[in-house]
């Protein structure tokens, strides 16, 4: 009985780690940071969803704008109402492919990768290539990325009065602890 159970656990765990299919993170982290002379602006969300296709190396990443949390309620309000227009554009999406993808990337130690794809923010599509890392941390597949975006590229209008107070570029940080799902 115990042996059977052991084999079963071994089977399911190996299928989990190395099986074909997809990896998912339902509570992925994404932050948005801008340094300003007055005050640093930091918005964080732990509610992004990302799926990694283990066959093709495709990555989909989505977040709901209103899940970004800021230190001050007023910042949150401005972010959603004035800049992101979250009612009109509730989500941000990224769909891309890991450059030079091979399945060993999902089984090895953390290594640097590049992902190219289309980022949609505020209803505007932009093709980007961003650096990242991917690999196993304590037996779990972890993906990260850090890159900069310019609000104006996505049609986000920042009034000239406050333009100087908001950094020209926003730093986006992404971190996902993937779990295998589906076959």
């Amino acid at each position, binding site marked *: 009985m115990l042996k059977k159970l052991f084999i079963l656990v071994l089977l399911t765990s190996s299928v989990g780690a190395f099986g074909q299919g997809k990896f998912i993170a339902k509570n992925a982290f994404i932050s948005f940071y801008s340094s300003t002379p007055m005050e640093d602006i930091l918005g964080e969300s*732990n509610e992004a969803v990302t799926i990694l296709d283990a066959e093709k190396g495709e990555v989909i990443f989505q977040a709901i704008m209103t899940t970004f949390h800021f230190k001050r309620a007023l910042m949150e309000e401005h972010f959603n109402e004035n800049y992101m227009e979250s009612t009109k554009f509730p989500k941000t999406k990224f769909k891309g492919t890991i450059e030079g993808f091979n399945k060993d990337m999902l089984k090895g130690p953390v290594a640097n990768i590049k992902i190219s794809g289309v980022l949609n923010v505020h209803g505007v599509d932009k093709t980007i290539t961003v650096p990242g890392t991917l690999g196993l941390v304590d037996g779990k597949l972890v993906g990260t990325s850090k890159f900069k975006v310019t609000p104006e590229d996505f049609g986000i209008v920042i009034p000239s009065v406050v333009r100087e107070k908001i950094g020209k570029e926003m730093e986006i940080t992404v971190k996902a602890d993937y779990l295998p799902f589906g076959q």
Partner: protein
Amino acid sequence: MKIKYIILTLLALGFIGAGIGLKMFFKPHADINKLEAEFKVEATSLMDEFQKEENTATTKYSEKVLEISGKLVAKSKLKNGTDLLILEDEMQGVSCQLDSVWCAANQPAIQSLETGKPVTIKGICKGYLMEIKVSPAVVVK
């Protein structure tokens, strides 16, 4: 004499303005525990609405305070310490991130929650992303 009153009035107005400005700047986040729920719904019917007509449901529920009842299927802690409750379906159910301030004061209540049992939560609906995202939330019963 007259000019003195004008200056005083202007000063007073300035102070009031600055006061309002500061109050707005330091406005705290909404305390979910004190907010009245606008909708009381079953988790399953909420999932139905979002799965059938995501846009309609998003317009109806997004940023609204909801009281949601359903079966607790998963209870976990995120890396940053946030307590996470999932109702009805682990993959496509209702995912609730609990309010950290409320959690700090109500750890026994959270610990006593058992998976498989019914639970009612109150929180702000954020919309649909594979599952229904609710945050921050508190446990009602």
